[in-house]
């Protein structure tokens, strides 16, 4: 019940509400710009939040993540280009609706479904997170390492097209995190005699490079491909949304919200997978499956509910175990660290009020982006179509340099950002997985600490991980996830080969 006092305290703080409102607008606009993601916006704005109080800083970035997921649907429906990977499933039915002159109707369905999904996920997080944290407090180093191990495997193998390249991305993330001084023995690792490298690789320049500069490199290939906007429609009869029209969407929205919330809790899977799983499940259960893909309102509602339901639960592993469930979670770690807040199971003992106030900001942010989106999504679309991308991306390019410098006042970080940016672009081109790389980079320190503490506790070396049942369970979960993913990809490859034969 901590959420009610938190809600009152947030609602009576106009400055904090201002930050939440700004975040709702920024996230929606950035999410709606094809090529830009909420992760990129958050990475770029992260150093600016170092100058803010902890709650406004966290709330600002958290709500950008939420409204950014929703904003992707605007581009998917109006431009036939998903603003984010998560809204690619929305495009399947959203754009055909726009072509029929029902863009505003589709965006209203996307908005309502996003709000319901996001609220479901946030409420599940609020109800369940303290319980998970209490359980997490009982985990010792062997169990914690096993959770990390499972997270590495799931993050590396489940996202992306290639299991080997996804896992290699995770391994690269671990190796890059090892650069610098060993935190226990102060031994130099991978420094090659460079003083700059003894401080390790900074999280902020790495993320700005991967998510922002890497995207600028990618956008060079899109020069001249300006998105075409479908008519958002002024016809009230075609673009108004009635209860009778939305009612068939509700079962899909409820089911998809729970699908999204469940997938959100699993580290690394993210909104895109939730949206496609929900779309597939919705189509399978639909009374009108033939209409899906040709402009069914349910085909917009299901993925939108799922991809927004991911947002809240994806914070659960971050807040309770210190394991980011998403790239946005990985970035938020930077905010917690810079403000001296130790994330993990003890967070609910040391900063309980802050966390519930953050959840309250999340709930208020959902209402704000919902209201703005319901009445203004078409306006946002028209604003974005007028943005000159040949000016926008050079500005983002220049901004990434000064922001990377700002994080620690160090030009070496800017070189790191440039290297990470090019690496991020190359990883996308070669089917590696930048998200797995960054999340593994963040996880590696905690995983190594848990591993070495476990070995100190052990009389039988590595056997401690198989003699403790909970640790063994998580190791098996990781192995099973890898096995099932490889099997599923092999089956798809076989089907593709048979299809083309």
């Amino acid at each position, binding site marked *: 019940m901590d959420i009610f006092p938190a809600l009152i305290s947030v609602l009576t703080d106009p400055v904090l509400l201002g930050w939440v409102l700004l975040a709702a607008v920024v996230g929606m606009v950035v999410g709606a710009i094809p090529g830009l993601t909420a992760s990129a916006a958050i990475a770029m704005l992260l150093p600016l939040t170092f100058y803010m109080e902890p709650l406004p800083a966290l709330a600002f970035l958290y709500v950008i993540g939420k409204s950014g997921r929703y904003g992707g649907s605007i581009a998917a429906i109006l431009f036939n280009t998903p603003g984010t990977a998560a809204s690619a499933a929305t495009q399947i039915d959203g754009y055909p609706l726009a072509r029929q002159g029902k863009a505003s109707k589709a965006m209203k369905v996307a908005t309502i479904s996003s709000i319901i999904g996001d609220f479901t996920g946030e409420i599940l997080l609020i109800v369940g997170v303290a319980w998970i944290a209490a359980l997490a407090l009982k985990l010792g180093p062997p169990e914690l390492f096993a959770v990390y191990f499972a997270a590495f495997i799931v993050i590396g193998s489940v996202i992306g097209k290639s299991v080997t390249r996804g896992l290699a991305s995770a391994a690269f993330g671990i190796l890059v995190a090892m650069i610098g001084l060993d935190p226990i*023995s102060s031994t130099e690792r991978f420094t090659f005699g460079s003083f700059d490298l003894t401080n390790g690789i900074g999280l902020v320049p790495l993320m700005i490079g991967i998510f922002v500069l890497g995207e600028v490199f990618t956008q060079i290939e899109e020069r001249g491909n300006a998105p075409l906007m479908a008519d958002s429609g002024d016809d009230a009869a075609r673009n108004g949304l009635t209860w009778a029209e939305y009612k068939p969407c509700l079962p899909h929205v409820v089911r998809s919200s729970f699908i999204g919330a469940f997938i959100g809790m699993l580290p690394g899977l993210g909104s895109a997978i939730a949206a496609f799983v929900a779309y597939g499940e919705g189509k399978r259960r639909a009374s009108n499956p033939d209409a899906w893909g040709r402009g069914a309102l349910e085909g917009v509602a299901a993925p939108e509910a799922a991809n927004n339901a991911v947002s809240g639960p994806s914070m659960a592993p971050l807040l309770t175990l210190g394991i980011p469930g998403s790239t946005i979670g990985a970035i938020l770690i930077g905010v917690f660290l810079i403000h001296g807040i130790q994330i993990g199971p003890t967070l609910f003992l040391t900063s309980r009020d802050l966390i519930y106030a953050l959840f309250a900001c999340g709930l208020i942010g959902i209402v704000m982006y919902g209201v703005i989106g319901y009445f203004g999504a078409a306006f946002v679309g028209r604003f974005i179509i007028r943005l000159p991308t040949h000016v926008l991306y050079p*500005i983002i390019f220049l901004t990434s340099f000064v922001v990377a410098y700002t994080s620690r006042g160090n030009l070496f970080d800017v070189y790191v950002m440039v290297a990470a940016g090019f690496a991020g672009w190359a990883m996308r081109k070669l089917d590696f997985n930048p998200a797995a790389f960054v999340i593994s980079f963040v996880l590696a320190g905690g995983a190594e600490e848990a591993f070495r503490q476990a070995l100190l506790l052990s009389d039988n070396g590595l056997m401690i991980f198989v003699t403790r049942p909970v640790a063994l369970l998580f190791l098996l979960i990781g192995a099973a996830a890898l096995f099932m993913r490889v099997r599923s990809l092999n089956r798809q*490859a076989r089907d593709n080969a048979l299809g083309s034969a």
Partner: protein
Amino acid sequence: MTLGSSPAPRVVGMALILIGIGAMATSMGIPLDQQGRWGARFFPLAGSITLVVLGAAELRKTASASQMDPRHLPAIAALLALAVVYVWLISAVGYLISTALAAPVALWIFGLRTPLGLGAATLLCPAAYHLVFFKLLGVFPPLGRYFDLLDVLGGY
């Protein structure tokens, strides 16, 4: 182990193996702890071995066509070169001059050709970034090793 076609498995596999071997050799150079245990060496070594194993798995895949579009490579190389030169220029002549030079080049690479736009970027970008980050946020600006306009304009 892949879905659909992915670029050049042999090249990627060989690169992973070579990087993995290099990282393994470097990891073996990390000193043991006081009790003679691997300690700080364990994780780097595990990551390196994983790369070698994954590289070997990658080699077993069938080759497929590259997805790279070579038409864009000159622009990407130009942007990368600009990025590296821009950071070096910041360290050499400070933030204002380097940004005044980099801004029109970045816009030009992205296709802006109007002299007015390029000229405006030369003046406005350094001024705007300096104002926001170094004046409003109070970050100490990177000063040039050889020359810095801030020395002439009255300093920071």
